[in-house]
């Protein structure tokens, strides 16, 4: 498990710049410190920050300047003082995150420019959670036009990139709970939650956080947004994103380290550590999608694969049509009915007349269940499994990906098969293979390897003929 913790912190600078001025601001400052210790205990090596105070328009931006250095001043609370900073950014992860987002259909880019204005929220989070740059860091923007589905896909892309490099990562969202600021300046002693209604909803959120019910918070956000949030601002994207990065469930050990008013808003410092406790099932969610296929790609048009699919729609009679996908040269293909990639790569890519498939295993789309069983249990102990069932599932997944690309199993020209135990599994695997591939006549190489990224015994790498353009 590479995502080792989730963190919620406020970005308003008072706990950093003047914690002594108000007892609640001081409590929040102490809460940051307590959360920092929790992160150390979690084994985190990196902080990945999503800040509502960094809006983007052109897709999603990811910080990739290795050592950004500046003296920051907040545009509203400039009288509280300047904030000099020098951070340690994981630029390689930034690029990997960008690629993972692109593979899921999102517009994404890294930014690496001296003087780039890192937002107040990210600065506050890093100064208080990571004062000595013990952790490396990454920061991603909050797109002003992104809806819930797009934000969830961005969260899944972050998870892809984290799982791919294996660095233990704490995921931080910068946000307040209720977000109604006062519209006049107040004395520090006058600070309070803007309304009793906001206070009551904040209490409900804190109750969910204490129970580790992150996915429930994400679901509840549709109501929360109407009740306690200023709707023109940032929606409730941080919770949608955090839930997606952390695996979309309710099984966390939640801790509320501090909660206090911050200039009328509800400031809370919360940590969520993945747990084995049962926290309830995730509800049906129509906005929980794997790939972004939005309609906003105006300048670039549809992605190449989608464009090719659109172009090759042929009439099948009055009022009907069938779609025969023909990905364009260089196009990436992702099949919605095949298992999600575990890294920043597409299911397949067309180059010239050929389709190159990424390694395909037996996991089932949606559930990640493994036909024939996993090769080890939750404690990492080896267990019995059925390699024939796994091989059948591998071939079926390959069939789905090829069909999504407009090709078929009959068009396979070369197969590289990976087995984790040649002596035990070759015969059964070979029998299933022969059932499907004898008539196809593809060339084949079978290799024994020490391990695969998920607890499976077999994986195929395939090259096939692409459909004619």
């Amino acid at each position: 498990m590479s995502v080792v913790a989730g963190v919620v912190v406020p970005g308003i600078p008072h706990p950093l710049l003047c914690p002594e001025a108000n007892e609640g601001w001081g409590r929040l400052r102490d809460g940051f410190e307590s959360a920092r210790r929790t992160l150390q205990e979690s084994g985190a090596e990196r902080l990945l920050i999503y800040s509502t105070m960094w809006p983007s328009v052109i897709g999603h931006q990811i910080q990739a300047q290795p050592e950004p250095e500046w003296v920051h001043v907040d545009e509203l609370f400039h009288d509280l003082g300047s904030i000099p900073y020098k951070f340690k950014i994981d630029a390689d992860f930034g690029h990997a995150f960008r690629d993972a987002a692109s593979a899921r259909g999102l517009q994404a880019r890294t930014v690496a420019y001296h003087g780039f204005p890192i937002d107040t929220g990210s600065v506050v989070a890093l100064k208080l959670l990571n004062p000595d740059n013990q952790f490396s860091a990454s920061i991603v923007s909050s797109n002003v036009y992104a809806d819930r589905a797009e934000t969830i896909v961005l969260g899944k892309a972050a998870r892809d990139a984290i799982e791919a490099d294996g660095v233990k990562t704490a995921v931080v969202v910068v946000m307040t709970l209720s977000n109604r600021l006062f519209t006049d300046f107040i004395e520090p002693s006058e600070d309070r939650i803007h309304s009793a209604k906001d206070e009551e909803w904040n209490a409900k959120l804190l109750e969910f956080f204490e129970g580790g019910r992150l996915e429930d918070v994400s679901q509840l956000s549709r109501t929360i947004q109407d009740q306690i949030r200023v709707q023109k601002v940032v929606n409730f994207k941080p919770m949608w994103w955090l839930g997606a990065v952390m695996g979309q469930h309710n099984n966390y050990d939640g801790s509320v380290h501090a909660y206090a008013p911050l200039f009328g808003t509800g400031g809370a410092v919360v940590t969520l550590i993945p747990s084995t406790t049962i926290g309830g099932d995730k509800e049906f969610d129509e906005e929980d999608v794997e790939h972004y296929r939005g309609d906003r790609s105006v300048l670039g048009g549809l992605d190449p694969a989608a464009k090719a699919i659109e172009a090759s729609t042929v009439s099948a009679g009055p009022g009907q049509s069938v779609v025969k996908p023909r990905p364009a040269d260089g196009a990436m293909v992702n099949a919605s009915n095949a298992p999600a990639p575990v890294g920043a790569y597409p299911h397949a890519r067309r180059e010239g007349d050929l389709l190159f498939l990424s390694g395909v295993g037996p996991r089932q789309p949606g559930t990640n269940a493994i036909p024939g069983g996993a090769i080890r249990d939750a404690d990492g102990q080896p267990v019995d499994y059925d390699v024939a069932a796994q091989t059948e599932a591998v071939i079926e997944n390959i069939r789905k990906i090829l069909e999504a690309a407009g090709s078929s199993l009959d068009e396979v020209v070369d197969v590289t098969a990976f087995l984790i135990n040649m002596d035990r599994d070759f015969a059964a695997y070979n029998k299933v293979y022969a059932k499907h591939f004898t008539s196809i006549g593809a060339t084949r190489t079978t290799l024994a390897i020490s391990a695969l990224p998920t607890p499976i015994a077999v994986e195929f790498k395939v090259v096939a003929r692409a459909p004619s353009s």
Partner: protein
Amino acid sequence: MEGRIVAGLLAPHPPHLVYAENPPQNEPTAECGWETLRWGYERLRKDLERIDFDAIVILSPHWQTYVGHHFLGVPHFKSLSVDPVFPNLFRYHYELDVDVDLARAIAQQGSDRGLVTKMMENPDFRVDYGTIVSCHLTRPEWDKPIVSISSCRSTTYYSVEVMAEKAKVLAEATKAAVAESGKKVVLIASNSLSHRHFTTESSVPEDMSKEHIMHHGQYLWDMRAIELLRHGKTQQFIDEMPEFTNQAISETDAGALSWMLQALDVPDYEAELYGYGTVIGTGNAVMGWFPGGAS
């Protein structure tokens, strides 16, 4: 002698226009782009050369303060401005002077009228890119001191109508402070008209074959706004502005245009239209009002 407002300008701030112009202050360079707007700014600058003025007062949507209007209160700034949305296009080394006395006077007049105002006196503060882009395009010599006023984002709590009333109070405060100062002042409303962006960018940002209005509805609203202003029907435009702002997702929600037009006493004379063009899908007009008829 009593000071006066000698011009009001609608001067939008897409960083793309500075990028396309390749001034020495900006790090990225371009081949071309958005010429109709840039030529419009050229004509505006020529008209401004015929006017004697002492200072520029600008209200920018990109200095966003949730509590009242803030005013730059340090005499001189020198730093690097990097656009957080288009950092690939705008990394501009700026150096500018502030008319702190005039800024303080407007802030005081606003406060006297019930507005929340605050002077920004932190020398490490980075001036927002909206102010820098509009000022550069209007007066690239940077030889006039500026007063930069933040956009009060109470707009996120209140209706457009309420914010228009607040803009009117700020306009009255501006007029009174300018009159008291004895200075001749140019006002700048730094905003686009329709403001729905594309969410993707061409691999060559200045590829004009990819540039157009985001959708036809926006264009219709932009043309209606421009036609009203071109024909001196400013009061009608102000009356319609709440609907315009909502329908065109307009940057006029920042209050800059309302403020400027009301500080000009709601002109019943024709505005000069210097140019209209789209930038990454948004609609932008460069326009001028000259109470003395200087153009």
